[in-house]
C-alpha cells in the first residue's frame, strides 16, 4: 500500500509551511525527512496523521482519498518530540490505550502490551505512573504505544531531540534495531530529524525539506555525496559545509591569496561566481599549510571545532581530537581539495567529487 501525496500546500498566514510537497512512499520502507527547525517537518507529519488539513493538494493511501478519513480511523501512529503520554494512566494503560479503542480481547491486549514493553526495554515498569519516569523512559512509553497498534504508517517526529546525549545515542541504536527487525515489512516509517548524522545512520530514503519545499529526494548516501544545491549541502552537514568564494582558472583554485591545484572534477569549470564547498572534516591541520587565524575554538565531545578566518573567508574545521587553541592563534591547514564541491552562483550543484553532474566526466 502506497502513500502518495500530490502538491500539498499549507499556508496559515503569510508563510508557507508546506509548499507543493509531493511524494510517493512505499510500504516496507524508511523515509527520513531532513530539515532545519521550522522547515515544515512537523506540519507534514501532522498532515499525514490527519491533525492538519492542507489548503490544497491530495493524499492517497491504499487507493483511497486519505484526507476524507478522520484522524481516528487512519490507523496511523505518531511519536512526538515532546514526550506525549496520558498523565492519568499508568505505563500499562498508556500503551494499552490504542488497543482499547478497538474491540480487542483483554488477553490479546495484555500480550501485545507486554511484547511492546519488552521491545522498548521497560518490562517491570507497567504499574508506574508516567510522571515517575525519566524523559527517556517516557519517550519509550510513547514509542511502545505507537508500536503496539501495528499501524500501517508510523510517524516519528524528531523523537530524540529532547533527550540528552547519552540517551539519544542509546535510543537511536534501539530504533535501528527495531526498524531492521522486520517491523517495517508492511509499514511506512516516516522519521523526521534535524540531525544529518541521524539521517545517515538510519540510512533510509531521505527527503530534504526547507521552508516547506522539497529540495531533494534520494537515498541517504546520495544526498550526502551529491547534494543538488548549496542549501541541501548546508542542511545535510553538521557543522554546515564550508562555502568559499573562489575563482577557477588555469587549473587553479584561487581565494584569499591561496592557490590550489584544481582536482579533475573541478578543472573544467570556468564560470564566474563559483562557490567551493568543503566539509569541515575535509580540512586538516598541517605544518606546511596555509595560515588562518582562530576566531573561536569549541570542544564538543571528543571533537574540536575551529572557526577560522583569513581575509573575508571564514571556515570551520573539525578535528577528531581535543585540542586547546586561543583566540587569534595562528594555525596552518591543508585542504583535501579533491573532496571539494562546486556550486554555481544560483546555488545549484556544479560538480561533486562523487560524480554528480560535471564530475561525471
Amino acid at each position, binding site marked *: 500500500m502506497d502513500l502518495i501525496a500530490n502538491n500539498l500546500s499549507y499556508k496559515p498566514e503569510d508563510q508557507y509551511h508546506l509548499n507543493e510537497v509531493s511524494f510517493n512512499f512505499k510500504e516496507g520502507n524508511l523515509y527520513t525527512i531532513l530539515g532545519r527547525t521550522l522547515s515544515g517537518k512537523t506540519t507534514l507529519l501532522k498532515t499525514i496523521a490527519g*491533525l492538519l488539513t492542507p489548503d490544497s493538494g491530495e493524499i492517497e493511501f491504499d487507493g483511497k482519498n486519505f484526507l476524507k478519513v478522520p484522524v481516528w480511523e487512519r490507523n*496511523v501512529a505518531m511519536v512526538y518530540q515532546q514526550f506525549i503520554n*496520558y498523565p492519568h494512566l499508568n505505563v500499562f494503560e498508556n500503551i494499552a*490505550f490504542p488497543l482499547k479503542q478497538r474491540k480487542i480481547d483483554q488477553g490479546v491486549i495484555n500480550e501485545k502490551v507486554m511484547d511492546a514493553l519488552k521491545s522498548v526495554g521497560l518490562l517491570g515498569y507497567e504499574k508506574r505512573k508516567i510522571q515517575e519516569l525519566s524523559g527517556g523512559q517516557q519517550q519509550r512509553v510513547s514509542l511502545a504505544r505507537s508500536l503496539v497498534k501495528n499501524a500501517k504508517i508510523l510517524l516519528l517526529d524528531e523523537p530524540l531531540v529532547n533527550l540528552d546525549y547519552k540517551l539519544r545515542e542509546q535510543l537511536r541504536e534501539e530504533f535501528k534495531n527495531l526498524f531492521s527487525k522486520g517491523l517495517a515489512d508492511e509499514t511506512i516509517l516516516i522519521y523526521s530529524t534535524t540531525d544529518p548524522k541521524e539521517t545517515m545512520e538510519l540510512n533510509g530514503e531521505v527527503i530534504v525539506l526547507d521552508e516547506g519545499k522539497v529540495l531533494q529526494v534520494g537515498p541517504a548516501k546520495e544526498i550526502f555525496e551529491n547534494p543538488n544545491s548549496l542549501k541541501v549541502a548546508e542542511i545535510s552537514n553538521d557543522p554546515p559545509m564550508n562555502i568559499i568564494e573562489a575563482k577557477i582558472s588555469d587549473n587553479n583554485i584561487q581565494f584569499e591569496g591561496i592557490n590550489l591545484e584544481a582536482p579533475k572534477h573541478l578543472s573544467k569549470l570556468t564560470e564566474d561566481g563559483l562557490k567551493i564547498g568543503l566539509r569541515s572534516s575535509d580540512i586538516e591541520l598541517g605544518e606546511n599549510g596555509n595560515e588562518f587565524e582562530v576566531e573561536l575554538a569549541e570542544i564538543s565531545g571528543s571533537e574540536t571545532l575551529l572557526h577560522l578566518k583569513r581575509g573575508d573567508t571564514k571556515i570551520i574545521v573539525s578535528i577528531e581530537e581535543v585540542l586547546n587553541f586561543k583566540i587569534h592563534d595562528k594555525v596552518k591547514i591543508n585542504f583535501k581539495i579533491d573532496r571539494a564541491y562546486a556550486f554555481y552562483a544560483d546555488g545549484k550543484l556544479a560538480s561533486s567529487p562523487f560524480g554528480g553532474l560535471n564530475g561525471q566526466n
Partner: protein
Amino acid sequence: MNFKHKYFFLFPGLFVLIGILIFPIIFVVRLSLSGWNSYNPGLDYIGLENYIRLFTDDPRFWESFFRLSFLSVTTVILQYVIGFALAHMVWKDIKFKRFFRVLFLVPMMTTPVIMTVIWRTFFHESLGPVNDLLSVFGVAPKWLTDPVIAKFTVIIVEVWQWTPFMFLLLLAGLLSLPKEPFLAAAIDGASPVRKFIYVTFPLMAPISIGAIIIRLIEASKIMDTVYVLTSGGPGTSTETSSFYIFIKGLREFQMGYAASMSFTYLIIMIISLTIIAKVLTKVLLKE
C-alpha cells in the same frame, strides 16, 4: 529562630478567627445545653435535654434533613452535568465563544432573592406565564402547591441559579488541561465520544471533585430559595434543615433547642461531606 513578637503579629488574625468562628461555636454548644426560649431567656443549664428531644421526639427535623439531602444531591448532580456540557461546548473554538461564556454566567450575577421572586411569578398557578404556555397542551401543574412538584420547582430554580458557578469552575479546569493527550488520543484511534470518556473526563476528575464538594456545601445551605418560593410549603414538603432551624430559633424563639439542632447538623455535615469527598476521590481518581 526565636522571634519574641510573633504572637503580637498573629493576634489580629487570631482575634478575628476567635470572634467569628471559635466563639460562636463554643457559644452554640453552651446555648444548646440551655433552655433559652421566649418565656425563659437566659443561659440556664438543662443538660442534654434538648438533644434527647431532638433524637427521640422530633421527626420533623430528620424529615427536613433527608429532604435537604435529596434536594442538594439532585441539584448538584444536575448542575454538574449541565455545567460540564456547557463548559465543554464553549471550550472548543466555536463562533461567539466569548459571548456564550459570559451569557452562561449571567444567572450567577443576579440577586438570588429577587430572581426567586421572579421565578415564583413565573410559576404562579393561575397568573404565571409557564402555565399560560402549558395550557396549550391542556395541563396546569401545581408548581408551588403540590407537595411533589414543589420540590422539583425548588430544584429548577436552584439549578438555574447555580449552574453558572459549576460552569465557571469546570471551564477553568478544561482550559488548564494539557493539549497533548488529546492529540495522542486522536491518533490512537479514539473517536470524539471516546476521547471524552477516556481522556477529558478522567483528566477533569480532580477539578470535578473540588467543584462538586464546593457546590454540595453551598447547596446544603438552601434557605433563601425555599423561603421566598414556597416558605417550606405546602405543609412541610419543601422544608429544609436550615429553614426548620430558622423557624424554631428565630420564629418560635426556642434558642436553646435551635442551637442543639445547629450543632447536630454541623457534625452530620462534617462527617457526611468527608465521606463523600473520600468516596468521590476513590471512584473518580481510583486512588
